[in-house]
C-alpha cells in the first residue's frame, strides 16, 4: 500500500479544502442520522463523489496501461438508459442490473478491441463511443427522461447500508475489491508492465492484447455501475446529461491521485482520494454562496494549487537551473 508519506500532498490538499469548506459553512462537519442514513455535508461529499470515484477506479487501470477512456460518460448514460427502460418495462431488478452492467462491459470490450486489436490510439478509439454512445443512450430513451419508481433500483442510488449511502458503500466495496484483485494477483504488475513498455512485455510472454481488452472492459463495468447509481439517484435516466463531461473529472481524479498519464505505476486508492478531493471542492463551491459565474475560476485555481503542491513535494519546482530529469536520461 502506498505509504502515507507518498499520499501527503493529496491528504494535505484535502485537508485544506475541507478547512475552507468549514470556514464557508461552520456546520460542514455536522453529522446526524436521517431516515436510517447518515446525513451531513461530509456524507454529501462522499455520496456525490462516489460515481466519479467509481469511474476513476476503472480509469486508473486504463491509464496505467497507457490508455485513456473518454467514453465513460456516454457509457454511464447508456447503462442508466438501459436500466430505466427495462425497469419501466417491468423487468425485475436483478435482471435489470445485470443487463445494464453487461452493456457497460460490452462497450468496454469494444473499446478494448479497437485499442488492442485495431491498434487505434486510445483517445480516438474511445472518442468514437463517447460521441456515438450518448446517441445510443438517447435512442434507447427517445430523448426523454425515463422516470421509474422501482424501489429495488432506487435503493442502489439512495438506499443505505450500515447507515452509509449505497453509492458510498458500492464505491468503497469496488475500490477494495479492485485493490485486492490487482495486488493479490499479478494483474497489477502485468498492467504496469504493459503501460511502461508494451513491446518488452509482449516479448516477456505477457498476453498484452488480452490484458488491454480486460482493462477497458473493467472500465466499462465501472462506468455502467456509476451510470446505474446516477440514474437511481434521480429515479430517472437522463440520457442527455448523465455523465456529461465526467470523463474529464475521472481523468483528473486519477492524475491528482498521482498516476501518470504516461502509464505504469498506479494506485487505485489514491485515485479514489483524488475523486474525493474534486468533490470536496465542488461541494465547497456549492455551499460557499459564490455566484455561479465564479465556479469555474475557483475550480481552476484549486486545481492549479493542488498541482503546484504535488509538484513541489516531488521536488519538481526547479525554477532557476534548467532541469534535466536525471531519472529520465536513460529512458525514452
Amino acid at each position, binding site marked *: 500500500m502506498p505509504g502515507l508519506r507518498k499520499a501527503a500532498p493529496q491528504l494535505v490538499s484535502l485537508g485544506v479544502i475541507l478547512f475552507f469548506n468549514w470556514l464557508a459553512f461552520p456546520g460542514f462537519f455536522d453529522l446526524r442520522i436521517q431516515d436510517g442514513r447518515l446525513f451531513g455535508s461530509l456524507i454529501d461529499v462522499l455520496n456525490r463523489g462516489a460515481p466519479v470515484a467509481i469511474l476513476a477506479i476503472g480509469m486508473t487501470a486504463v491509464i496505467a496501461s497507457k490508455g485513456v477512456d473518454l467514453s465513460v460518460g456516454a457509457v454511464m448514460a447508456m447503462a442508466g438508459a438501459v436500466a430505466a427502460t427495462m425497469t419501466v418495462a417491468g423487468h425485475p431488478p436483478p435482471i435489470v442490473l445485470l443487463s445494464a452492467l453487461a452493456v457497460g462491459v460490452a462497450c468496454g470490450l469494444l473499446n478494448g478491441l479497437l485499442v488492442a486489436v485495431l491498434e487505434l490510439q486510445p483517445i*480516438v478509439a474511445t472518442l468514437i463511443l463517447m460521441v456515438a454512445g450518448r446517441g445510443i443512450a438517447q435512442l434507447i430513451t427517445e430523448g426523454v427522461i425515463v422516470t421509474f419508481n422501482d424501489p429495488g433500483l432506487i435503493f442502489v442510488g439512495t438506499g443505505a447500508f450500515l447507515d452509509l449511502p449505497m453509492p458510498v458503500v458500492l464505491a468503497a466495496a469496488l475500490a477494495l475489491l479492485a485493490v485486492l484483485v490487482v495486488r493479490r494477483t499479478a494483474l497489477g504488475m502485468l498492467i504496469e508492465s504493459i503501460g511502461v513498455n508494451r513491446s518488452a512485455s509482449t516479448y516477456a510472454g505477457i498476453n498484452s492484447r488480452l490484458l488491454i481488452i480486460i482493462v477497458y472492459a473493467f472500465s466499462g463495468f465501472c462506468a455502467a455501475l456509476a451510470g446505474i447509481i446516477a440514474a437511481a439517484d434521480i429515479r430517472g435516466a437522463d440520457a442527455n446529461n448523465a455523465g456529461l463531461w465526467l470523463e*474529464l473529472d475521472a481523468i483528473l481524479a486519477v492524475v491528482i491521485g498521482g498516476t*501518470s*498519464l504516461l502509464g505504469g505505476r498506479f494506485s487505485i486508492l489514491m485515485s479514489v482520494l483524488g475523486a474525493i478531493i474534486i468533490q470536496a471542492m465542488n461541494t465547497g463551491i456549492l455551499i460557499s454562496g459564490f455566484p455561479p459565474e465564479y465556479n469555474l*475560476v475557483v475550480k481552476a485555481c484549486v486545481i492549479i494549487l493542488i498541482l503546484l503542491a504535488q509538484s513541489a513535494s516531488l521536488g519538481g519546482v526547479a525554477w532557476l537551473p534548467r532541469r534535466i530529469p536525471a531519472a529520465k536520461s536513460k529512458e525514452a
Partner: protein
Amino acid sequence: MSSRLLPFYATLAIFVLAYGVCVFQFPNMLSTRVAGNLLTDNAFLGIVAVGMTFVILSGGIDLSVGAVIGFTTVLIAVLISWYGIHPLAAFAIALAISTAFGAAMGVVIHYLDVPAFIVTLAGMFLARGMAFVITTDSIPIRHEFYTTLQGLYLRLPGGGRFTLIGGLMVLVFAFGIALAHFTRFGSYVYALGGNKTSAELMGVPVARTTIGIYALSGFLSGLAGVVFSLYTSAGYSLSAVGVELDTIAAVVIGGTLLTGGVGLVAGTFMGVIIQGLIQTYIVFDGTLSSWWTKIVVGLLLFAFIALQRLLVVLSDRKRLLRNTPT
C-alpha cells in the same frame, strides 16, 4: 519522405471518395456554395487545429482552445461595445492575452513537469470562467469595421463565397506548413514529440520550444476567437464549447499521432474538411434525429479512421520490402 506523407495521401483518397459518394447521393453538394461554406464555416476550427497540430506533434495536448475562443469573443465584444475601442485594437489586445495565456501554460507544463492534459484542463476552466466573470450575456458587436470585414468576399461562379475568414484559414495553414517543415522551430517540435530526452541531449532548446508551442496554440486560439467573433458578430461566454474535442478529432483524422512526432499540418486541413463534410452530409440528409446524428457521426468517424489505418498498414507493408537498407 514518402513514409511521412502516407497517412496524408490515405486521408486525401478517403476524402475524395467520400465527397464522391455525397455528390452521387445529393448532386447539390457539388457546388461552389458548399465548397465555400466548407471553408467559411470551418475557418475557426481550422485555425485552432493548426495550433493543436503543433501541440500534438510535440507530444502534448491543449484542452483549453475552445474556452480561449469563447473568452476571446467575449473580451472583444466587451472592448468594442462597452469601451468603444476600435476592433483592430481589440484584436491586438485579445491576441496578446491569449498568447500570454498559452505561454503561461507552457511554462507550467515545462518547469513544473505537470502533464499538459491537466494544465490545459485547468486552463480551460480558467478561460471559460473568466468569460463568465466578464459577462454571461451574449453581446452583439455593431461596428462599421465588422460590416466592412464581413463584406469582403469573392463571389464564386454558382453563388458560393470565398470569404475573408475562409481565406484567413487557408493562410494560417500555409503559415503552419511552412513553420512545421521549413523552420528550425518546426524540427524542434517534431523532435520533442519523437523523444523528449533525446531531443534534450541533442541540444534542442526544450523549454523555449515547449513554451513557444503553447504560446502558438494560444495565439491561434485567440485568432480563431477573432474569426468566430467576425463569423457571428457577437461575443458569448458559451461559444465554442467542446471545440477542443472537434479539433483533436480533426488533427487525428488528419493522420497525426497523439503520441507525438508524426503527422502533417496539411493532414489536419483534410481532417477539418472531412469533419465539415460529415456535417454537411447530415444536414443534406435531414432525416436523422438528434440521437442518430450522434451515432452516425461516431460511425463515420470510425469508418474514416479504420479506413485510414487499413490504407496505411497495407502500403506500409509494401514499403518495408522496398526500403530494406544495407
